[in-house]
């Protein structure tokens, strides 16, 4: 049989030799460089969205196997406080979760984290060893919040001596003083703080730092500022001064409640603002005797800052959320607050943006107390402005986003103190990054000298049709967290509302995870272009087509691309026709059927393991040679 090549056909089946590479500069799509760790990392939507890049699918699989302690330790590696975060994390992973693009509801990632924490065994033996002989470097940390404690977690095992100065008489920062115990029980907080404090942190309570200069004079090798954003915003409208006795700043009021200084509030309470602080204030009010609590929002619901689940939890407790009301004045009669006047607002909204605002009237609402929950800011009255630590026009410290170093070498900022209020998981990530900088700094290395993330892949093939993960798509809906009944929940201030998942709920929920870290890995030289993978894919992710301009390739996909934020895999030229394999990652359910159907194993299912460098991974001179 003569092997003759015939390219004169119209169906685009041009032989590779005829194609001869891209026709013009930029005219065809370049093959995806999957060696860049970001490619496969992005596919794991939850991990990519998590500020600390927690390996979510891995811990979910461990939970599925009943390996709760292992699941906890996978969490702890990156997020340090799994028990705390399993209850109150802001969970940026959930809106990102791929499952949400399939049946609308993401995997209950956060709840599953709590499952690991609730059911783990004693983990102390698995915590890093702390060397008896220290490395001679002394670090001062200001504030005993999650940011500072993460720095200690990373540095104490390396031989650093960490001294934490805390203004209050308990450690924990806002997690203790502001997040109410009915969401985060003290026992959980204490346990996870103690894992770190017991490593040998020198914790100085009731020790506010009042002068940075004096602290620096004490000769620490580095200083970490983790003092948070402690200043609640004011509402300067008429009547504010006169009614002061019954107007409370949200975060201060929550702190007073947490430490037992405030034990009651009036029956009618108005909360101004509709962020997460407002949600904690309204629910706390209900537990201190209020029975008519309204949260007053200036804008419509789509513009609320509070997370959906916090709003739902508040509404479940019969809190009324009133929209389109802008505070105008406090009304005071006979020297006492009687209520507030609001302007009734109307908005023109186009494409989710407010384009016009109108006041259509006024409304008076009676109130015994008002709580202001309209935001918080950083405040550094204790940092002298002439010691080399620069502040910007908004009086925020100038600090590098990656290294967290301020303009004064050796002084680092992290958590809410660095770039304004965020959340616990961001504070933890800041802590990890600052710890790397401090480690470098103390050892004469550039703070910028940081290891890159790495990506490892390992096949999950067990047999011809068997994978070492549960690849079947489980169609079940998201499980709902049970709450303590309304009749019982308000009796004690610290009754935890969420009961945790039952074993049955856990068993279902873990199967909803799509194992996005079990990646579809393609070897173009093996593909015989039989289309089997394309035909079997239940979500039409795959296409073999001619290469071309991005929009042309996009128009030829098996299913039109729906999500420009999702990665698109482009293979190199295929052997037989010179076409390319394209995979739209958007709704791949990682069922492995493409790999199972492929006659040549051109597709394989491989677990991606993201290597996240921490301080301990950054080589410096052997510690014994320094100092002591």
């Amino acid at each position: 049989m003569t092997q003759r090549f015939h390219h004169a056909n119209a169906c685009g089946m041009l032989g590779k030799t005829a194609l001869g590479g891209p026709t013009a500069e930029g005219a065809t799509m370049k093959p995806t460089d999957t060696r860049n760790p970001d490619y496969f990392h992005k596919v794991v939507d939850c991990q990519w969205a998590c500020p600390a890049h927690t390996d979510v699918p891995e811990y979910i699989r461990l939970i599925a196997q009943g390996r709760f302690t292992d699941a906890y330790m996978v969490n702890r590696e990156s997020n340090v406080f799994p028990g705390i975060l399993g209850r109150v994390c802001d969970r940026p992973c959930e809106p990102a979760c791929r499952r949400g693009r399939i049946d609308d509801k993401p995997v209950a990632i956060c709840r599953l984290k709590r499952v690991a924490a609730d059911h783990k065994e004693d983990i102390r033996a698995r915590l890093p060893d702390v060397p008896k002989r220290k490395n001679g470097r002394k670090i001062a940390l200001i504030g005993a919040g999650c940011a500072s404690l993460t720095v200690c977690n990373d540095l104490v095992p390396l031989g650093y001596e960490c001294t934490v100065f805390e203004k209050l008489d308990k450690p924990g920062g806002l997690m203790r003083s502001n997040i109410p115990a009915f969401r985060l029980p003290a026992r959980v907080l204490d346990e996870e703080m103690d894992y770190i404090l017991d490593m040998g942190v020198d914790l100085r309570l009731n020790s506010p730092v009042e002068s940075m200069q004096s602290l620096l004079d004490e000769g620490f090798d580095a200083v970490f500022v983790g003092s948070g954003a402690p200043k609640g915003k004011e509402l300067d409208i008429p009547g504010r001064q006169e009614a002061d006795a019954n107007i409370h700043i949200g975060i201060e009021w929550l702190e007073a409640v947490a430490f037992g200084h405030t034990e009651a509030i009036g029956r009618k309470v108005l909360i101004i603002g509709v962020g997460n602080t407002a949600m904690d204030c309204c629910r706390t009010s209900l537990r201190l005797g209020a029975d008519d609590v309204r949260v007053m929002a200036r804008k419509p619901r789509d513009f609320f800052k509070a997370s959906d689940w916090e709003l739902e939890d508040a509404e479940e407790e019969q809190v009324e959320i009133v929209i389109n009301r802008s505070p105008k004045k406090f009304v005071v009669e006979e020297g006492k607050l009687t209520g507030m006047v609001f302007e009734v607002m109307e908005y023109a909204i186009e494409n989710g943006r407010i384009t016009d605002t109108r006041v259509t009237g006024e409304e008076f609402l009676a109130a015994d107390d008002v709580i202001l929950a309209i935001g918080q800011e950083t405040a550094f009255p204790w940092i002298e402005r002439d010691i080399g630590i620069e502040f910007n026009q908004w009086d925020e410290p100038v600090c590098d986003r990656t290294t967290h170093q301020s303009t004064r070498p050796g002084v680092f900022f992290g958590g809410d103190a660095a770039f304004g209020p965020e959340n616990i998981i961001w504070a933890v990530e800041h802590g990890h990054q600052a710890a790397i900088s401090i480690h470098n700094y103390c050892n004469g290395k550039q703070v910028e000298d940081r290891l890159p993330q790495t990506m490892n892949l390992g096949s999950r093939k067990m047999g011809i049709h068997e994978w070492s993960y549960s690849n079947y798509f489980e169609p079940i809906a998201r499980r709902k967290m049970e709450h303590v009944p309304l009749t019982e929940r308000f009796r004690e201030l610290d009754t935890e509302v969420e009961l945790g998942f039952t074993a049955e709920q856990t068993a279902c929920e873990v199967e909803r995870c799509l194992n996005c870290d079990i990646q579809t890995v393609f070897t173009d030289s093996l593909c015989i272009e039989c289309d089997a993978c394309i035909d079997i894919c239940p979500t039409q992710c795959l296409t073999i087509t001619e290469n071309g301009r991005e929009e042309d390739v996009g128009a030829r996909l098996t299913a039109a691309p729906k999500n420009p934020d999702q990665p698109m895999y482009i293979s190199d030229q295929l052997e037989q026709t010179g076409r390319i394999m394209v995979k739209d990652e958007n709704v791949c359910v990682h069922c492995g059927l493409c790999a199972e159907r492929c006659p040549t194993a051109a597709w394989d299912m491989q677990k991606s393991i993201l290597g996240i460098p921490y301080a301990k991974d950054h080589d410096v001179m052997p510690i014994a040679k320094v100092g002591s």
Partner: protein
Amino acid sequence: MSYIAKPKVSWAGQERNSLGLTLADYEGGLSTLCAGCGHDSITAALVRGFWELGLEPEQVIKLSGIGCSSKTPAYFLSGAHGFNSVHGRMPSVATGAQAARRDLIAVGISGDGDSLSIGFGQFAHAVRRNLNVLYIIENNGVYGLTKGQFSASADPGSKAKKGAANRNQAIDPVATAITLGGSFAARSFSGDKKQLVPLIKAGLMHPGCAVIDVVSPCVTFNDHEGSTKSYAWTRQHLHATVEADYVPPSTEIQVDYDDGAHTDVNLHDGSVLRLKKTDPDYDPSNRAGALDFLEAHRARAEVVTGLLYIDPDLPTFHDIAGTSKQPLTQHEFEDLSPGADALAELQKGLR
């Protein structure tokens, strides 16, 4: 084979056809064929063709004989009617089905063994009677199901897996169909859905017998070097001639081809088969020319694909046999079986 069934997943933005159905609604059971089998690709092309046309699955009847190819009706349109008959007998069963249920759209799936050996006679008569069926031959050059013996479509010289060369001449189903007076004769390749899906749609809408010979590599027994039905060989020797596309009635016809001539073939229901020629001199309405062309390219070891011959005006089985427009299932029992007296009356007129 797979351990898990293809899951039914729905997601935001999933495409739906004119009936509001998804592609998955046109699928069938999970294929038990070898991974990479060309037949599975043809199945997927059928799923897409039916979906794009927006046909109701229960308006369709699937018919087949025996072979790996003949198993495939189980893998698409699980909502359709179906009859998996005996080896080579699909055309007889299809004839019966059409005689009784003219309202159903019939699709017959056969193999090169099923249609060119044991069922060759059946194939020939279905074609010359212009039976109203889309007749797909999933052509892999071997008897796949019985482990890879050469079939009647194997080219002389093509090598078996263990190296023996075929010494018999090959039957070309397309040339055969044209010779037999067929009204629609096409060839395609399982690895080219861009060509195959429109051809399937055209074949489904063609009033008479639409024969599509689809080269469909058998990954297990006939995809090696030396085989002329492998993926690689087929791709290297493809020669496309006439692409066909189906344009439904009352669709505004937009001329969006930027190159090459196109010809419209009008069907009786007002729809149009739009033919686009890549060989400008080729005329798909010329029987002698088509046979000549096939022969010339066969001699050059080229696999000619596309809609090679069409005549939509030939009378079909229904026209010739005068089948009942109303499905037999919808007739009253008395109409279907009017009794001995009526028979006697009828016979009287014939004496």
